[in-house]
């Protein structure tokens, strides 16, 4: 995969490797510290819990990685999550009177299609009309949230099909299904990003869109596709969250875009695009998840959680800055 090669003029090989693995090392240190601080941390049940808790943000962050790699941003992920979740819920709810309850898999398909459609709208406007991603997805943040309220009439959609709830609450052998879905999505995304020309084009568009265009790449299509991918994964996350909370909540996913962007940035992906990795994002997602979990276990106030997360984001970006500075 196109991890950056070590630049010349770096201190020895050892430090280069340390640098490459910095997020993984940070993760290990945090896990080690937490396992010393509380005996419950390293238990299998807790680790599974953390995985389950990060699976929603994980899915959003995968899509966000694609988007940010092209040099864009998707602020609408939380709202698209809510929309996808509510649409899915409406088709498996016995209490939602406008729509009959249908086969849960068909319902999930419809929910995913709804989120994908919103992503496609983002993609078309950004790639064809050239509205900047920040503005377009800021608009979509509001539009999708409003549509969610309209669709659900502002009320939680409850009394959901029991089979459907398994998607959020069941197990695939020892792994909770949300975790399994997240891992599968991650693997597919990894293959797409690192084993297909599409993935290479994503990096190329973020690295230098003009150069990519002259090299014969349909830049508009690549940009369109990353927002479609993001919309799809948001709806998937929304479906998982709905099944996990047993209700299609129209307020779900408020400000989730912040955690997704944070995970991507902590993972070393450059906000200007072209540089970063999916593995880094995975580590970023886990880092945030472990910190939230650890501070809960240690009964640290959630105020500190927020301060802590903010410092990690800024710290990660500062490290990147020092690195590129010494590269000159």
């Amino acid at each position, binding site marked *: 995969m196109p991890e950056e090669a070590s630049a*010349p003029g770096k201190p020895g090989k050892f430090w280069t490797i340390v640098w490459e693995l910095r997020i993984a090392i940070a993760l290990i240190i945090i896990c080690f510290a937490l396992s010393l601080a509380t005996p419950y941390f390293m238990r299998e049940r807790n680790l599974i819990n953390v995985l389950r808790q990060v699976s929603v943000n994980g899915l959003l962050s995968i899509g966000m990685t694609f988007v940010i790699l092209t040099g864009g941003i998707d602020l609408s992920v939380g709202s698209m999550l809510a929309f996808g979740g509510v649409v899915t819920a409406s088709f498996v709810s016995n209490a939602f009177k406008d729509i009959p309850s249908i086969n849960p898999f068909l319902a999930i398909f419809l929910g995913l299609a709804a989120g994908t459609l919103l992503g496609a709208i983002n993609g078309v406007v950004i790639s064809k009309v050239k509205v900047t991603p920040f503005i377009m997805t800021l608009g979509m943040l509001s539009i999708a949230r409003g549509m969610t309220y309209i669709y659900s009439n502002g009320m939680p959609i409850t009394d959901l099909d029991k089979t459907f709830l398994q998607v959020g609450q069941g197990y695939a052998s020892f792994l909770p299904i949300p975790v399994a879905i997240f891992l599968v999505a991650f693997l597919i995304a990894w293959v797409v990003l690192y*084993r297909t020309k599409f993935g*290479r084009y994503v990096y190329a568009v973020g690295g230098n869109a003009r150069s990519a265009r002259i090299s014969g790449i349909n830049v508009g299509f690549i940009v369109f596709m990353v927002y479609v991918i993001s919309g799809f994964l948001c709806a998937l996350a929304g479906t998982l969250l709905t099944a996990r909370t047993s209700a299609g909540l129209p307020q779900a996913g408020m400000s989730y875009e912040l955690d997704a962007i944070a995970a991507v940035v902590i993972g070393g992906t450059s906000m200007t695009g072209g540089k970063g990795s999916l593995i880094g994002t995975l580590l970023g997602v886990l880092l945030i998840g472990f910190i939230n979990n650890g501070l809960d276990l240690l009964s640290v106030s959630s105020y500190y959680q927020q301060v802590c997360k903010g410092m990690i984001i800024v710290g990660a970006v500062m490290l990147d800055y020092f690195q590129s500075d010494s590269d000159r």
Partner: protein
Amino acid sequence: MTATGTDQEIILRMVNVDKRFHGVHALKGVSIELRRGEVHAICGENGAGKSTLMKILMGVYAADSGDMQLNGHPVRFQSPRQALDAGIAIIEQELTPIPDMTVAENIFLGREPMTAGGLFVNYRSLNRMAQDVLARIKVRIEPTRKMKTLSVAEVQLVEIAKALSYDSDVLIMDEPTSAIGERETDVLFDIIRTLKTQGKGIFYISHRLKEIFRVADVVTILRDGEYIATKPTSGLDQDALVNLMISRKLEGQYVKENTPTDVPFLTVRNLRRRGKHEAVSLVLHRGEILGIYGLVGAGRSEFLESLFGVARPDGGEVLLEGKPVAHRTPYDSIRNGVAFVTEDRKNSGLALILSVKDNTTLTSIRKYHRGPFVNRRREMRDVLRAIDFFGIKTPSERQLVRNLSGGNQQKVVLGRWLLAQPSILLMDEPTRGIDVGAKREIYKFMSDFANEGNGVIMVSSELPEVIGMSDRILVFKDGRLNGEVSRAEASEELLMQIAT
């Protein structure tokens, strides 16, 4: 070492400057002296240490060892700001204007004169000061114009005015002519002569050896970070200088072995784009290198962009072997076997933050697809082939392109297009900012490429290059085709005449 022959006082002296970048010995004890009223050229291939030396002078890097004296006092700058305050200004190769500010605001950025009380910028005095500075170098640009309305050449002149506005004793000019045409170059050289009479010392860095003989008094040659010699230009000729710069001896700068046929390959009829260039018609034959010459802003690059589909032309047609083709996007052109090496490597040629491998296979990667996946073995084989073919100097194919020298970056661009197996190569300023050795290799590639029955269209501002490499030369002026010159009758005087 003081072979300059002038007896003017020494302004600046750098002694035994040594610099390593984590294992790479970039400067090996280099010493250099600059006198008042002297234009001191620094020559060397890319990677010889010219830029590193200047960056140490400007306080961007700290030297590992060595001394620096300014007007006899030892100095050591921690930052470009300190160097500026001490009277050393640089005109950088890469221009960094703020497009939405006026000329005057750009020149005095951070040093604006204030009204009494220091609350507001005194625009009247700001514009007057800018006018004065511009007048000093005999440039007529309204100080109130926005930078974004200026041509590249005018921006360059403003940057020079800005450097002068610091009243520096020492001026560093790093490839000041790389973005401007012949006429602006003449203006610049007039300015340099004026500055000499004012007693300034100037370091002049350029790949264009002819300019060095026109403007410099002395030249210091660096090679692989080592000091080679300092000589008066009056006692040198171009070949002697090149031989000092490269250890091997060059047998002629240009490689031209192709034989053009008269089989029409690419025909362009009345291709036009409003505001950029008027209707242009031309025929490229198999085996031919077709040169396009013109001053900056004559519409040459814009024409190539229309031809390749980067921008949509307003009318006209393109025929390939007599059959009309539609080049609506670069993708269409590439499918028809056309490749485009753009003028500006960094902005439109390469993704600097990606690796050599990813840049090299950007166009051809669709060929390596087997089913949904990239066949990475085949991809790697081609990458290594391209690296090998062009002799790209890189520690590994995973190296980021950003860390390569200009010449090697250009070879990566060429390697990318080579892998796309084109039959027509459009090249815009193919050797800009590249050292002599790499230039020769690129010329050889062009010649070999044409000789295989392909065609090349080369846009260049360097007269010797156009004359040295082209079978025919088209001259652009003010957005239209103003004349055609055969290889036999081509001369610098004639081309300039048609272009101006």
